[in-house]
């Protein structure tokens, strides 16, 4: 196995990790504020559909991205109204959102485009194209380039802008959560909302803010799937990534930097599953691809079982806040 092959696998890992990371950070904001969200999958799906649909109609991927974020935020608000304002069960509301998105996207796509629940293929400005860094070596000549040039051209350059954006959001999330007053209050509202309320700060307002941020990030994740990785929407195209993101969130114990590592690890496992030949050539054992696909979940269960430290969720998570009367 040569260096370039390793880079190619890492490159694929990064592409796989990006939607996971965005969804994971979305879940982080929401759950840190005490709102469990298993509707990540549905929000991504709705955003993937609307971003591709609007990009196809307007020819501009940026308008598509905004529309995708809009769709995701709208679903977030439904989740917010159900679980914050009306104090419903957050899990039920989240699952309802998943079903709503799975059904609505196909039905609306069929009505608008008549292509069996797909959007038309995007081309040109209708999709996010790779950003080539200055001086990057094109793919065909890469094999002859030096290791540093390979690293620069293959792994760092050539991703869409959303990948770099996702990576930037990690330090931003850390800063917001741990270095701003808003972040402190947001974390507090997930641990002890009564204390926040006593301090005269609106619990409901903070939780809505968290849910909205969650919607925006999920929107970017969905748009990334449909307009950057793919050139259009296909039904159920999120294929469970929202749930893997949730697993990553638990694996990362609800912390931003660890979320990045967890998502990169899960992305790496998925990328490795594409190259069973590599594992065979390195280890000499024929590993079942299914095992690699299942590893993210197995690892999460291991973490939950307390073998590697303890994963403690935000204390007030899942409980609607009721003001004392």
């Amino acid at each position: 196995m040569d260096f370039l092959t390793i880079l190619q696998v890492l490159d694929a890992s990064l592409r796989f990790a990006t939607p996971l990371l965005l969804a994971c950070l979305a879940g982080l904001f929401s759950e840190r504020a005490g709102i469990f969200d298993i509707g990540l999958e549905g929000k991504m799906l709705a955003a993937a559909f609307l971003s591709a649909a609007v990009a196809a109609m307007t020819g501009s991927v940026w308008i598509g991205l905004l529309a995708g974020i809009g769709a995701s935020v709208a679903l977030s608000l439904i989740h917010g109204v159900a679980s914050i304002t009306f104090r419903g069960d957050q899990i039920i509301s989240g699952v309802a959102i998943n079903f709503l998105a799975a059904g609505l996207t196909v039905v609306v796509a069929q009505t608008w485009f008549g292509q069996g629940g797909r959007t038309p293929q995007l081309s040109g400005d209708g999709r996010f194209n790779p950003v080539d860094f200055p001086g990057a070596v094109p793919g065909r000549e890469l094999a002859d380039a030096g290791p540093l040039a390979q690293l620069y051209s293959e792994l760092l350059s050539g991703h869409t802008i959303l990948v770099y954006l996702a990576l930037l959001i990690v330090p931003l999330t850390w800063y917001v959560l741990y270095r701003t007053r808003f972040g402190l209050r947001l974390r507090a509202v997930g641990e002890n909302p009564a204390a926040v309320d006593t301090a005269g700060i609106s619990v409901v307002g903070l939780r809505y803010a968290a849910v909205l941020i969650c919607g925006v990030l999920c929107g970017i994740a969905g748009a990334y799937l449909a307009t950057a990785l793919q050139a259009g929407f296909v039904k159920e195209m999120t294929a469970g990534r929202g749930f893997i993101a949730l697993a990553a969130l638990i694996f990362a114990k609800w912390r931003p930097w660890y979320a990045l590592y967890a998502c990169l690890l899960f992305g790496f496992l998925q990328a490795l599953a594409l190259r069973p030949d590599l594992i065979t050539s390195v280890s000499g054992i024929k590993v079942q691809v299914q095992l690699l696909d299942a590893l993210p979940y197995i690892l999460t269960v291991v973490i939950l079982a307390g073998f590697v430290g303890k994963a403690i969720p935000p204390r007030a998570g899942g409980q609607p806040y009721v003001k004392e009367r």
Partner: protein
Amino acid sequence: MTLGKLLQSLLTLDRLRGHLLGDHLDLLESRPIEERAGPDTWETSMSFMKSIMGGAAALALTAGAALADPAIIFDLGGKFDKSFNEAAFSGAQRWAEETGGSFREIELQNEAQREQALRRFAEAGSNPIVMAGFAFASALGEVAGEYPDTSFVIIDMVVDAPNVRSVVFNEHEGSYLVGMMAAMASESDTVGFIGGMDIPLIRRFACGYAQGVKAVNADATVIANMTGTTPAAWNDPVKGSELTKAQISQGADVVFAAAGGTGVGVLQTAADEGILSVGVDSNQNYLHSGKVLTSMMKRVDNAVYNAFSDGPGLETGFNVMGLANGGVGYALDEHNEALVSAEMKAAVDEASMKIQAGEVAVHDYMSDESCPALNF
């Protein structure tokens, strides 16, 4: 949140969904599902009828006509999957256009609906009832005996009952031909195969393809990957794209996608990265004109058309659609004529003749669950 709670709620909701969709189906079935009438004749005769006899008589007439209508059930991929189900739909539509008849149809949303949909159509008097997909086998096995006067047609699977016609395709023969073309078009002597869900049927595609490749170039490498082991593998274009990129990095310059909706991602990435792809089931050459080498055509449309034309009481039993009777083949049209050289076409047509004459035997993976040309 705890994982246990998450799993529990998922399970409950999945059951719930089954119920909801089941009930939904009842509602749908109480009226004819998207009755498809032939062009204009139906409308004009309707208004004529209405003007003479009034609404009640017309209603009775349509009810009578609906009785012997054929019906078709599409599988979970959906009838516009640009592939298997869409081919079935176009066959049904062609029949409706040519005969002016109408048919009933339903797209399944859920595994639990299979048996229910079958029963509903049989109860409503639809005859024959065509099922597009191997997954109907167990449901049909249950239902077929209860409606001995109804003819059933199942595509891609064999169900042994006196009133069932089992249509199977020799996918390995068609895949063999596109495998030959892929090997001839490849400059790197490495070609790829991307399957959807890992089931014997898809391995049969892969095995025929690999044999075709090796027939042209015994030293060529065939890289085969499956997208997954669950039905989600039919609709994961993102993974399809990444598999394509992984195969490209291993040197593949032609990839054959037999993967339903996942294939959309494969063909897209192949076109983006400047390599050739091969479509499946329907003619997919137009999806990326000039970048799809050919498509392995499985004439599901012919199977549906024949079944509808034969009508109630059609000849039952085992029906093999192979190269000889136009059941499988490769697609050649204006979108790929620049890619297929005269030499390539001559070689493939010759091989096709030999297979039909029995001079060349293409190994069928499903006959013994093994493949001489490819190691899964």
